[in-house]
């Protein structure tokens, strides 16, 4: 399926300064895999060392949070748009 991944502003510098990347994928996992194999620098900002999506990284397919779909196994349709949106967290020691 041809899908579009919207790159959040802070990460565009690691994706050839692109606002979005068009790629072929059948699932969200495939799309993110293809994205990070094209742009390896993105990996450490999306995934923690154990290979899981960072807790503050949220992925949407056409505005639907994948946590309420089938997470990274969510299947994609031709023309779907995937957005990566951080939630912001922090604190003191």
């Amino acid at each position, binding site marked *: 399926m041809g899908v579009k991944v919207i790159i959040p*502003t802070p990460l565009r510098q690691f994706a050839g300064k692109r606002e979005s990347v068009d790629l072929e994928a059948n699932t969200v996992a495939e799309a993110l895999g293809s994205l990070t194999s094209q742009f390896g620098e993105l990996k*450490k900002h999306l995934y923690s060392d154990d290979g899981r999506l960072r807790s503050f990284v949220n992925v949407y397919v056409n505005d639907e949070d994948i946590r309420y779909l089938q997470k990274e196994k969510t299947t994609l349709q031709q023309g779907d748009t995937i957005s990566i949106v951080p939630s*912001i*967290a922090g*604190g*003191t020691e």
Partner: protein
Amino acid sequence: MLRVGEALIEKIHEHGARDYPNECCGALLGNDEGANRTVLGLVPLVNQRNDSPRNRFSITADDVRLAEKEASAKGWELIGWYHSHPDSPARPSEFDREHAWPWYSYIIFQVEKGEPREMRSWRLDDDRVKYQEEGIEFISSVPR
């Protein structure tokens, strides 16, 4: 260098004092001109960490998208975030680092016994290992 108007600094300070002893948080909207950035507006947000608001803050992805929309409606960008450190220095914690992305400016300010104190701004290195301090230039009026 991060340029911030005094009126906006005051608003951030007020937010930190009002929410003390809890952490406050919000979005920084403005222009990114490469080496220099200018904060032109704020979106004060609700700290969603009800379980431990005194030493943690969290902003939902929905609020992030709201702040992005507000920025683009004004022709600006969402350039970073501010949060308070109640009774704790204005430097990023390890928890801050684990949850940060490069590029964003992270303003951190100390609120000591309810009084806003030192304010500093930080940007995470591309390798995520440490932060660099970004100087804050306090300006009396915001240029358009």
